[in-house]
Structures are given as C-alpha cells and as structure tokens.
C-alpha cells in the first residue's frame, strides 16, 4: 500500500499531532506515504467565497504536481476540507466541459497540466476500505478496553459526495474503533456540522453547534475526529460552548489516528497527545490503565 500524501496547511502547524499520528499509525499498518514536493494551500473553505476559478485551480495545482511526481498513486488526504477541495476538481470538470480548459490555462503559467488521473481519498476511506478493521485489529498491542468513543465525522468527508460511507448515518469508524478494543457511543450527531469557519466570522452561531455536539457526546470518554477544523472547534472552543449551551461536561477530543497509535502501543508523546487542547484526567487515567494491563 503506497499513497501520495497531502497533509495540508493545518497539519503543518496547529494540527501537527494529526500529521504525526497519521504518519506513525499508517506506518504500523504497512502503508507507505510519498509527500508531494512543492504542494501548496488548496484554499480551504475560504476560496469559494472569493473566486470560483481559484476554487478549482488551487487544488488542481497539487493534483498536477501529484500526476507528475507521484504518478499512479492515490492521493491520501487527512483533512476533510482539503479532501473535498481536491475531490471536487474532477467532479466539477465532469459536469462543466469548459472548466478543464480554464484550469489548465491557469496552470500553464507554471508549465503544469492537470489531467484528472489521480484518485482522491480521505484518510478514513483508506483506513476502512484499503486497510480494513481486521488489519487494524492485528496491529493492536494495547487494547483500549473500557474506553467509550464518540466517532465524529463532520461534514465534508461525507457530503456532498458520499463515496465511502452513508452520509445520513455514517458508520465507517465503528469497526475501526471496535477493532481497537474500545466501545462506540451510540449517538446521532456524528455528521452534525461543527460550525467550521463560522467560528471566525459568526462565533455565536458556531458555538450553538459545538454545544449540541458536546451535549450529545455525554457518556463518551473521548470524541474522535478526522478533520483539523472539527478538532479545533470542538477542543479550543469547548469551554465557551459548554458555557453558552448551559449543560454538558468537558470531554477529550482526539484525532482518530492518535487513538489508533495509542492502541498500537505508541506512547502518548509519540502521538503528540500533549499538543491536544482538550484531554481530561479521566481519559489519561484510562489510557494508562490500558498501558499497564499490557505491561
């Protein structure tokens, strides 16, 4: 298993724990990653309100680089916003005949060409379809017994293109989390929007969404995410959201890959757990009990 890898801007800075835990847990699963040399920002969720052409040209630039530098490999993307932006280029080109020509005219300033040959895959898609729960279970060294986890999918991994999961009732994380020995919290907020960039532009509205998600996760030791924007909204604004919502308790928020890494026997430092903004003492106690049981 070998993939071209697009970490995206957040994973280089505020979500470095996602990048590191992703690389380390995938290595344990025998997946090899090839970085795309010279990749640039895909425009995240800010580009579409600014320019339609740039919305496609920015991710197409990375796809053109991938076609040239990592030809034949699927592109693995851990960030849901980056995933959607890259995936959307091919989808829109199929629907709008004039678009490929316009994209390539723009890319021609750098001598690049986008042909649409690269398959864009979300990390969660790769984990559930290519790796599979069985291989995940086989890599477990430290079962996460006694841990209850709320899988949070967010929006853009599921919608508008439902390629690997049911967008109304997402469940692709369930077998993966169970393979780690943990229990999945039954809840129906896994695909409820976290507010995304409204947290920067209309904070009060976004806090309502975060408060609803946190209240729904009651009973979970941790919420796991597969997107740096979801992670940031749920962890960094947690205290404010709990105050605004008037109920709910602090809950740990981890990236799915951190949970995988911990179950694979990686240390807390190795998955950069100290970089997370919301980790409760109750969670670390349980994790350490799992580690002690292994020793």
């Amino acid at each position: 298993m070998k993939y071209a890898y697009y970490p995206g801007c957040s994973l280089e800075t505020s979500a470095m724990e996602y990048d590191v835990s992703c690389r380390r847990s995938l290595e344990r699963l025998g997946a090899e990653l090839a970085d795309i040399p010279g990749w640039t920002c895909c425009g995240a969720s800010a580009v579409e309100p600014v320019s339609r052409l740039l919305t496609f040209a920015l991710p197409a630039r990375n796809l053109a680089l991938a076609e040239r530098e990592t030809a034949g490999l699927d592109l693995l993307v851990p960030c849901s916003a980056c995933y959607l932006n890259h995936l959307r280029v091919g989808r829109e080109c199929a629907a709008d005949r004039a678009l490929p020509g316009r994209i390539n005219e723009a890319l021609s300033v750098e001598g690049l060409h986008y042909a649409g040959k690269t398959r864009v895959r979300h990390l969660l898609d790769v984990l559930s379809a290519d790796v599979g729960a069985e291989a995940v279970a086989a890599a477990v060294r430290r079962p996460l017994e006694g841990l209850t986890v709320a899988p949070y999918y967010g929006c853009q991994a599921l919608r508008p293109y439902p390629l690997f999961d049911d967008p109304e009732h997402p469940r692709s994380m369930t077998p993966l989390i169970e393979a780690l020995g943990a229990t999945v919290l039954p809840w129906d907020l896994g695909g409820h929007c976290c507010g995304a960039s409204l947290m920067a532009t209309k904070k009060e509205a976004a806090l309502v969404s975060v408060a609803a998600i946190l209240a729904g996760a009651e009973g979970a030791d941790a919420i796991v995410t597969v997107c740096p924007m979801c992670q940031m909204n749920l962890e960094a604004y947690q205290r404010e959201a709990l105050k605004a919502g008037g109920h709910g308790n602090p809950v740990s928020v981890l990236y799915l890959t951190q949970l995988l890494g911990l179950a694979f026997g990686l240390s807390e430092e190795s998955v950069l757990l100290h970089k997370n903004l919301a980790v409760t003492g109750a969670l670390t106690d349980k994790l350490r009990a799992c580690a002690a049981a292994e020793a």
Partner: protein
Amino acid sequence: MKNATLPPLTFLREPGAAPDPAGLAEVQDIVRACMQCGTCTASCPNAHAMDLTPRRMWRMLLFGLFEEVFQSRTFWLCSACYTCTLRCPRGLPLTAAMAALKRLAAAGDDAANRKKALFYQEFMRNVEKNGRVQETGLMFHYFLAMRDPLLPLEYTPLGLKLLRKGKLHFGGGGQRGALAPLFGKVREMEARP
C-alpha cells in the same frame, strides 16, 4: 502594515459596483427548479441564526428581490456543511449558490457586506503571499482589516492556548511566493469580460 507589495485581492470586476447581473442570473439558474419544499431550511444547522430561511431566500432570488437578499445575513451564515445540497429533492447545488452569493455581495457596493467578506479575503491574501496558510499572520491581518478593537480580545484565549502548545508559527513556510504566478493568472482570467 498591509501587504503593500501585493495587488489588492479583488477578483471582482469593479469593487463598489452593483452586483454583477450575469452572476445574479447564474445563481437564479442554480435554484430555478426549486419547488419550495423547505427541506433545505429544515436541514440547515445554522437556520436558527438566519433572518431569511434558505427556502424563502431562493424564492426571493427568483422574484428578483436582490436588494432584500443582499441585506440579509442568511448566506453569510452558511458553514458549507452540504446537508441541504445532499438532501434537496431537486438535486440543486445549494452550497455553491450560497458561496456565489458571498462572492457577489463582496463585490457589491454595500459596505457591511464587504466587511463580512474580509475574513475570506484576508485568508486568500495570506495564501497568495505564503503559498501555505500562516495562521498567525492571517488572524493579525484580519483583525487589522476589521478595525474592531474588541475583536482580537475575543480570540486571545485561543491564541494563548496555541502559543502554550507551541502551535503558533511566525516564520514563513517553504512555499512563500510559490502561488504568485497562479494568482496573477487567475486574476487576469477572471477580469476578462
């Protein structure tokens, strides 16, 4: 203090002009087949904070009530969750319509709307300069552009949390300037009539 070396990040035909009629017609075309069922409104996680429901806004657009639509905050409250796009029984790309309204409003003559577009504009300005987003610089320039002395305070706790975790980076990334040619070309292409 602003990025003096960069051309202003406008992909707009003429800043300060009335919304582009061709652009308005395109959004109308997107929602032309709306049958007013209200599924979009019922699905929207942010409908509670909107002044017009999405369903109603589509109808007003089709009636040509542009001024009322651009006075509303509805499309600014879209967080691009794609639930309405997924569920609309007519299969209309409603999230794309919301984004198109943001672009049109940013290009219009309404100062309040132009200010609401600043976050996205500053974000893309940051991308143009650095090749990859530099979150620290982004927030700094956003605060400057908003000219609201209280706004930075609202985000100070977050800044401090990130600083303590060693997650704020003040330097430039390795791709500084890499996107200048592409931005220039797209700007030129979008300025064509």
